[in-house]
């Protein structure tokens, strides 16, 4: 299937792994953890300047996305997940802007430094987006195939014929389980789940190295959520693309992600393999998150209360989580704990583990 998908794209000017088809790529290890870094985010900061003070929505965040892995990014509403994703895609809407850091694609290109035509060329070909609201993400006056087709048209040289594009789109539909008739429809003629799958098909149209999916299932009912989630897993496994999956839903995330990254108030607080996060979370915030996951059999009291985060414009000195942390210590009020590897593959930003390094 992926062979098929790659035909005709061999000539696409790919910045990183240029003439590589999926078949040639190193095999994806079962746990999705081979160590080729697709995207390296280094000390990324994003601010939204307002009249009085800037909101630092993403504060000095660093992490890697490895080839073929599904990295889950979680954290409560407003913690900066979408902002991080949009910064990676260089799609921050004003007044938001990148205040510092690097976003290195395939070990070479710093996305932060790209502008104009160069940026345009990298978009979609190397990094694609599955948007938060698929409902409004499709142009209401263009047929589905035109919207996928124009992305292909904009990036593939030499231009593909209409027939080739059609074949390619139908192949993509096959990958995400869309019926062929979807080709000629307008967005309003699709169900929510179909729209979201059109968006997934569109995202992998150019076989990008990385797909950023911002809560792709949040507006869907539970059954359709599962189908769309399965689609994501399928494309990851078949095409070997890396996926940065943003979401609230711990349960769903636990089933999909290879690794998880936890954000709190614009800061990365913990990164570890998914299983580790679930079984032995280190950061007190992560622990509360995991405990809060309800199961059908046991009702749990809600330990985390919403809205107690500090004013993002005026972060406190010291640990970002101090006002809600049940284990807060004196040092936490003074010194901001850096994100450090405490165990293999397990990074956490908390003074509790200062001794462990």
């Amino acid at each position, binding site marked *: 299937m992926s062979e098929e998908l790659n035909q005709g794209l061999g000539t696409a000017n790919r910045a990183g792994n240029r003439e590589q088809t999926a078949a040639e790529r190193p095999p994806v290890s079962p746990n999705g953890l081979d160590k080729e870094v697709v995207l390296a985010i280094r000390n990324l900061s994003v601010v939204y300047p307002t009249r009085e003070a800037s909101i630092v929505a993403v504060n000095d965040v660093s992490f890697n996305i490895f080839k073929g892995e599904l990295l889950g990014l979680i954290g409560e509403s407003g913690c900066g997940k979408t902002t991080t994703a949009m910064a990676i895609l260089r*799609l921050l809407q004003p007044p938001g802007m990148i205040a510092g850091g690097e976003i290195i694609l395939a070990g070479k290109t710093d996305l932060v430094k790209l502008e104009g035509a160069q940026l*345009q060329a990298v978009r979609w070909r190397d990094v694609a987006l599955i*948007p938060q609201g698929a409902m*409004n993400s499709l*142009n209401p*006056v263009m047929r589905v195939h035109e919207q996928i087709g124009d992305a292909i048209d904009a990036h593939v040289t030499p231009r593909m014929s209409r027939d080739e594009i059609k074949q390619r789109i139908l192949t993509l539909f096959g990958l995400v389980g869309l019926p062929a008739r979807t080709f000629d429809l*307008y967005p309003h003629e699709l169900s929510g789940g179909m729209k979201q799958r059109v968006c997934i098909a569109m995202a992998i149209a150019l076989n990008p190295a990385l797909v950023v999916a911002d809560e792709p299932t949040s507006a869907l009912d539970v059954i359709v959520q599962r189908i769309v989630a399965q689609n994501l897993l399928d494309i990851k496994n078949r095409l070997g693309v890396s996926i940065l999956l943003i979401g609230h839903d711990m349960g769903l995330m636990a089933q999909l992600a290879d690794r998880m990254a936890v954000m709190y108030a614009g800061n990365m607080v913990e990164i570890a393999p998914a299983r580790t996060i679930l079984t032995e979370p280190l950061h007190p915030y992560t622990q509360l998150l995991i405990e809060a996951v309800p199961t059908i059999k046991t009702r749990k009291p809600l330990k985390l209360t919403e809205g107690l985060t500090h004013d993002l414009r005026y972060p406190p000195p010291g640990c970002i989580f101090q006002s809600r942390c049940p284990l807060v210590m004196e040092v936490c009020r003074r010194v901001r704990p850096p994100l450090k590897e405490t165990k293999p593959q397990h990074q956490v930003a908390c003074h509790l583990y200062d001794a462990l390094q």
Partner: protein
Amino acid sequence: MRGLTGKYLLKRFGMFVLTIWLGMTIIFIIPRLAVGDPTSALLGRLMSKGGNVENSAELIARWKDRFGLDQPLHIQYVRYLYNTITFNQGYSLSAFPATVDDLIQRTLPWTIGLLVVATLISFVLGNAIGALMAWRGTPRPVKSLLPFSLVFTSIPAFMLGILLIWVFSLTLNLLPYAGGFDRKVSPGWNPEFILNVARHAILPALAVVLVRMGSWALGMRGMMITADGEDYMVMAQAKGLSSGRRFWKYGVRNAILPQVTALGVAIGSIAGGFIIVEQIFSYPGIGSQLFRAIQDNDYTLLQGIVFYIIVGVAIAVLILDLTYPLIDPRISLKKN
């Protein structure tokens, strides 16, 4: 044709018929409200102008016969409706024995020609300006010039007409200020005549275009800003599409839809305003004719003209309504 469902067609034709019917009814009622008895009022008015009206006896007879003014009101109404929609609106009071329909049909092409051209130009220009004003990719120098196109937006077209005559005809002596063509050229499909007509049309058309352009630009600017905030615009950017494609296929293509709807709403007032522009320029169209009818107390002609204006606007709106589903694929499924 996509989108033109039976229900939609039925609804639009219904609105069309309703508009014309309501317009005719208003025209029917007004004279009967204003003065107790329309017969005597009209006859009285005619008598006072008796000197001007030849064959007044015959006129009065035909008049009474046509309206059946001795008949009960509902019979009069039905007759009036029938006569009007069969384009049999009787004789002009001031130009008897010319019929109202003949007189109007002579001037109508002038108005339609100029009005359609001026409206289309202002719509296209205005929307282009508005779209560029809102677009982030518009070059700075262009962007800083665009607002100047809004200078005349808020003033009535006929007032701008007066200023244009003063500047371009009386002061600069560049363009003719009155009429549809010069007497010295012979009407017909010859280049000289056509050029002459075009020269005469420039100032009245300019008055309409300059005034209307700004409101289209403002509307389009708002629509583009709204469209720019939509997720599909972010998506288009994420896809790495060229600025041109995002502007046209994603921005303008969506933002223009409410503008077309707004055009349908505005046609009535554009046509109304044009009546007075014509009068300022003594343009040989329906507006100047209306002005003359008022001065001559030619009530039949006046009502006839108003009927034609209502029908003309209703037809224009209908055409727009019927083309709209072709540009907006969603319309057929919309349940109103």
